[in-house]
């Protein structure tokens, strides 16, 4: 069950926020509601911090240590986000 998604990047200010917006758009497009979405820095990535971590493809190996994670190539693409979230939610 995915109740909380944490998008993160190295600084927690830019890239992570862009991903947060796109996660929210993608969830809406997929008809998934009731999921908390936050953005943060890599320092906050730890087991239990979220049910799913979303980050750039370069950082995904760090995130996998903390839990389920998806890596994004094109962070401004809602389409890619939608496809990857769809798989993560098993839809």
């Amino acid at each position: 069950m995915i109740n909380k998604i944490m998008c993160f990047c190295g600084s927690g200010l830019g890239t992570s926020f862009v991903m947060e917006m796109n996660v929210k758009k993608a969830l809406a497009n997929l008809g998934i509601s009731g999921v908390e979405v936050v953005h943060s820095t890599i320092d906050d990535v730890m087991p239990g911090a979220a049910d799913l971590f979303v980050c750039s493809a370069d950082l995904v190996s760090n995130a996998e240590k903390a839990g389920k994670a998806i890596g994004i190539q094109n962070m401004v693409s809602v389409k890619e986000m939608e496809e990857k979230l769809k798989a993560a939610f098993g839809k």
Partner: protein
Amino acid sequence: MELLKKENVQICDAAADWKEAIRTAVKPLEEHGYVEARYKEEIISNVEKMGPYIVIADNIALPHARPEQGALKTQIGVTLFRNKVVFDGKNVPARLFVTLAAKDSDSHLDALMEISELLSDEEAVERILTAPDADHLYRYFASH
């Protein structure tokens, strides 16, 4: 896009490597007092530590560091390189550098939202990447 000022928009030919590209892309913000001199080196050091997470899509980089790493005032700078800039460990190059300075965690979010929307439009990105001069480049962003 209100936050962007014309004085912080530039077109450059090429950069020797990604570090020089970041220094060039931060320069207008540094010259106009939005970031401290150390800001560019903090961005470089973040990328060295954590990988090229600032390359957010094909051709697009979003260089930024944390407020406490030398950002003084919230501002955006746009630098377009005519030639590709390659990052170590990244298979896609970058040409458009949207430099972000944020004085706190939320004053830049509206601008970032607009930038993200603009850059998710592939035709708009194509237009931006082929901008004939800095005036056009500024207008593509400002009119969004």
